[in-house]
C-alpha cells in the first residue's frame, strides 16, 4: 500500500511548508504566541469551526450514532451547540484582549479577576485537551492506520510519527502556523466527512436503502430504542451502578451533552484563536455560516449518514469503510481525518504549553525570563506534552480516556468566569472562584476519573457515571452557577480591580445596545430558551413521534428524531444568525480600541521569593510522588 505513506509524506511536506511561511512571517519570537494578533478574520473563522468539529465529528460522533442510534439528538445539533458560546463571548473577549493587549484566556482571568486559581483551571483544561481529548483522537487515528496497513506499522509507532509531524509545525511556526494550516485542515476535514458519507451511501445502495435499512431496524423491538428518546429523565444511580430503562438517552441526557459540547468554545483553545485575530469582523459570519451553517449541515447530514450506515451494516463503520475502498481514496480521506485531529491537537498542545510556561512557570518562578527563553522552554514543554500523550495512548488508554472525558465538562465550568467578564459585571472574584470550585467538584464526582481517584483513596461513591442520566457537564454547571449567583448576591459591594473596571466601562460604552436591539431582547431570550427546550431539552420527547404517522410509518421517510433534528438545525441556524447580526452579539465592530494604560506601579525584586517558591514546589512534587509510589508499592495500584 504505497498511497497512504505517499499522501502522508505529501501532507507532512505541506505542513512544513506552512510552518516555514509562518516562521518567516513571525520574524522574531515576539509574535510566536499570538501571530502578532494578525490572523485574518476568515482564517480564524475556519480554524474555529475546524477545531470545534475536529476529528471528533467522524471518530466520535459518527460512531456514537452507529452504537446508540438517534437516542442522543443533541449530538445532531452539535453545529449549533458549538456555535452558540462563540456568539455570546467571542466579540467581547476579543475586545478585552485588544484593550489589555492580552492573547490568552489565562491572562484575561489574571487581569480581570486577579485569580491564580482561575489561571490554573484554565491551564488544566488546556492540558486535558492536549493530552486527553486530542490524545484519544490521535489514538483512534493510529489504530486506524495500523488496521489499514494490516499491522505492518503498529499503532504506537504511528502515534509517535503523527505527533512528530504536529510537533514540527507547532514549534516552528507557533500560532501563525496553526492558523494558516488550520484553514486548509478544516477544508480537508469537511471534504473527508462528505467523502466518507458518500462512500457509506454508495456502499449501502443510496439514501433510500439507508432509510429502508433504518425502517427494518426500527421494526425489530430489540432495536426500537435506537430511534427514540428514553423519557425526560430517569433517576438512576448512573452508568456502572444502575442501568436506565431502555437506554441512557433521556431528553435531559441530551441537554447535558449539549452543555458539554458548548464547552469547547469556552475553552482556552478557542480563546487563543479569537485573541490572535486581527479584528472581529469575521466572527458573525464564522459562527453563523461556517460553523452553524456548513458545520451544522455536515453534522446533521454527513455525520448521521455515516453513523446510520454503520448502524445498519457494521461493515460500513469508518475503519472498515476505509479498508474497503480504493487505496487512493482511502489515503485521501485519512488525510482529511488526520488534518481534523491535528488541528485540534496542535492548537491544544500549543495553548497548554504556553499556559504552563507563560502563565504558570514564568510569573510564579522566573519572572525575569526573556521572550526568547520563554519560547524555547514552551517548545520543550510542547514536546514533553506530546510525548506524554503518545505514551499514554500506548500504555494507559483507559486513563487517557478518563482524562479526555474531563476536558469538555471542565471547560464548560469556564462559562461562569467568561459570563462575568463579558456580560455580568456583578459576578465577583470570590463568587466566581467558589462557583468554579463547586463546578469542578460536580464534574469530578460524576466522571470516572474522579471516581477512580476517590476509590484509590478508599472512598467508594454510591453512584456511577452521570447519575440521573445527566451529563457531568450539567452536574458541574448547575452548582457552579448557583454558588456564583448566591455568593455574588451576598458580596456585591466588593469592588473589582482597576483593569476589570476599565473593561466594564469599555464594554458598556463600546457595545451599548441601540433601541432596536433592546426592544428585541425579550424575543431573543424566548427564542433561545424555546430552541434549547425543543432541540435538546425535555421537548425532545415530542420528536419521538412528531413525524410518525398514525400507522407508525415515518412521514419523512427517515427516523422522526432525524427529521426533528434537521428542523431544529435549520431553526438553530436562524437563531444564531438572529443573535449574531440582529442582536449584534457577534456583529462586525469598526471602532478602534486604544490600549489600556495601567497606573505606574513599583516593581519589587521577586528573585528571592521566586526561588523559595520553586524550592517549595519541587519539594512538594517530590514528596507527593514519593507518597504515591510508596502507597502503590504497599497497597497495590
Amino acid at each position, binding site marked *: 500500500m504505497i498511497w497512504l505513506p505517499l499522501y502522508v509524506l505529501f501532507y507532512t511536506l505541506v505542513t512544513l511548508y506552512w510552518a516555514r511561511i509562518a516562521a518567516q512571517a513571525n520574524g522574531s519570537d515576539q509574535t510566536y504566541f499570538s501571530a502578532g494578533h494578525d490572523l485574518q478574520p476568515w482564517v480564524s473563522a475556519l480554524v474555529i469551526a475546524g477545531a470545534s468539529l475536529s476529528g471528533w465529528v467522524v471518530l466520535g460522533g459518527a460512531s456514537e450514532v452507529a452504537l446508540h442510534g438517534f437516542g442522543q439528538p443533541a449530538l445532531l445539533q452539535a453545529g449549533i451547540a458549538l456555535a452558540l458560546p462563540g456568539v455570546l463571548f467571542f466579540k467581547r473577549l476579543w475586545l478585552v484582549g485588544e484593550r489589555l493587549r492580552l492573547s490568552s484566556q489565562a491572562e484575561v482571568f489574571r487581569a480581570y479577576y486577579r485569580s491564580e486559581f482561575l489561571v490554573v483551571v484554565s491551564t488544566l483544561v488546556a492540558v486535558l485537551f492536549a493530552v486527553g481529548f486530542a490524545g484519544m483522537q490521535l489514538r483512534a487515528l493510529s489504530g486506524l492506520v495500523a488496521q489499514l496497513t494490516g499491522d505492518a506499522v503498529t499503532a504506537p509507532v504511528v502515534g509517535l510519527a503523527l505527533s512528530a509531524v504536529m510537533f514540527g509545525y507547532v514549534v516552528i511556526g507557533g500560532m501563525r502556523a496553526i492558523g494558516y494550516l488550520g484553514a486548509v485542515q478544516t477544508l480537508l476535514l469537511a*471534504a473527508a466527512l462528505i467523502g466518507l458519507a458518500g462512500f457509506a451511501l454508495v456502499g449501502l445502495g443510496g439514501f433510500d436503502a439507508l432509510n429502508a435499512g433504518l425502517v427494518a431496524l426500527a421494526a425489530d423491538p430489540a432495536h426500537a430504542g435506537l430511534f427514540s428518546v428514553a423519557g425526560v429523565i430517569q433517576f438512576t444511580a448512573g452508568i456502572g451502578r444502575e442501568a436506565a430503562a431502555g437506554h441512557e438517552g433521556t431528553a435531559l441526557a441530551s441537554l447535558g451533552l449539549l452543555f458539554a459540547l458548548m464547552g469547547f468554545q469556552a475553552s482556552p483553545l478557542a480563546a487563543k484563536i479569537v485573541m490572535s485575530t486581527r479584528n472581529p469582523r469575521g466572527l458573525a459570519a464564522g459562527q453563523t455560516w461556517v460553523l452553524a451553517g456548513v458545520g451544522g449541515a455536515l453534522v446533521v447530514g454527513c455525520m448521521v449518514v455515516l453513523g446510520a450506515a454503520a448502524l445498519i451494516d457494521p461493515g460500513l463503520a469508518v475503519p472498515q469503510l476505509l479498508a474497503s475502498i*480504493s487505496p*487512493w481514496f482511502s489515503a485521501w480521506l485519512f*488525510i482529511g481525518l488526520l488534518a481534523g485531529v491535528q488541528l485540534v491537537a496542535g492548537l491544544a498542545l500549543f495553548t497548554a504549553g504556553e499556559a504552563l510556561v507563560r502563565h504558570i512557570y514564568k510569573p510564579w518562578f522566573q519572572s525575569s525570563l526573556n521572550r526568547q527563553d520563554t519560547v524555547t522552554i514552551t517548545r520543550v514543554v510542547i514536546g514533553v506534552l506530546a510525548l506524554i500523550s503518545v505514551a499514554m495512548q500506548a500504555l494507559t488508554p483507559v486513563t487517557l480516556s478518563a482524562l479526555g472525558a474531563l476536558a469538555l465538562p471542565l471547560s464548560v465550568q469556564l462559562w461562569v468566569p467568561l459570563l462575568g467578564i463579558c456580560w455580568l459585571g456583578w459576578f465577583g472574584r470570590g463568587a466566581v472562584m467558589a462557583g468554579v470550585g463547586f463546578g469542578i467538584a460536580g464534574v469530578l464526582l460524576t466522571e470516572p476519573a474522579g471516581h477512580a481517584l476517590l476509590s484509590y483513596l478508599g472512598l467508594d461513591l454510591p453512584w456511577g457515571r452521570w447519575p440521573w442520566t445527566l451529563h457531568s457537564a450539567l452536574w458541574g454547571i448547575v452548582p457552579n452557577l448557583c454558588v456564583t449567583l448566591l455568593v455574588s448576591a451576598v458580596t456585591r459591594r466588593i469592588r473589582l480591580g482597576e483593569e476589570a473596571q476599565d473593561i466594564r466601562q469599555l464594554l458598556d460604552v463600546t457595545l451599548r445596545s441601540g433601541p432596536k436591539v433592546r426592544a428585541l431582547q425579550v424575543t431573543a431570550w424566548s427564542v433561545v430558551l424555546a430552541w434549547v427546550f425543543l432541540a435538546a431539552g425535555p421537548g425532545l420527547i415530542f420528536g419521538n413521534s412528531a413525524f410518525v404517522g398514525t400507522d407508525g410509518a415515518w412521514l419523512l421517510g427517515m427516523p422522526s428524531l432525524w427529521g426533528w433534528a434537521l428542523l431544529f438545525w435549520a431553526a438553530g441556524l436562524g437563531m444564531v444568525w438572529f443573535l449574531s447580526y440582529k442582536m449584534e452579539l457577534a456583529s462586525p465592530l469598526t471602532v478602534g480600541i486604544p490600549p489600556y494604560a495601567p497606573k505606574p506601579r513599583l516593581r519589587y525584586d521577586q528573585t528571592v521569593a521566586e526561588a523559595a517558591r520553586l524550592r517549595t514546589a519541587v519539594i512538594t512534587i517530590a514528596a507527593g510522588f514519593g507518597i504515591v509510589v510508596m502507597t502503590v508499592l504497599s497497597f497495590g495500584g
Partner: protein
Amino acid sequence: MSDKSPAVDRGILVFAIWAVFGFLGLGLFLEGMAHDVWGIAAIGVACVVLAFAGHIIVNGIFDTGFSQGETVLGIAIYGGLSLLFVLGALGGGMTMADFYSGLTLFGTLGAGFLVYLFTRHGLRGAFSRFHGKSASLQKGNR
C-alpha cells in the same frame, strides 16, 4: 507582516482548492482507470478542471497570475504524466477505457491551458509568452 497577508491568503486558498478538488479528481480518475469506466475518469478530469478554475478565480481575486513555482510544478506534473501515458500506450497494457481516459485528461488540460492563455493574454500575447525572442526582436526593429 500584514502586507504579506494577500499572498498568504491566496496561498491558503490555492492549497485548500487543490487538496480538496485536485485530490478528489485524481482519485476519481484513477478509479475510472482501475475499473475501466471512462465516465468516472471523466468526472475526475472535471474535478481537476474545477480545481484549475478555482485557482484562476483566486488569482483573479488577488489580481495575480500563476506563480513561477506553480507553473513549473504544473508543467512538470503534466510532462511526467504524459510520459507515463505514452509509455503505457506503447507498452500495450492499456485498455480502450484507459486510453480514452488519458486522452481526455491530457486533451482537456492542454486545451484548458490554451484557453487560459488566450483569455488572459489575448491571441497575440499568448503566442508571445512562448516566443520571447521574436518579441524582443520586434521591439528592437521598431
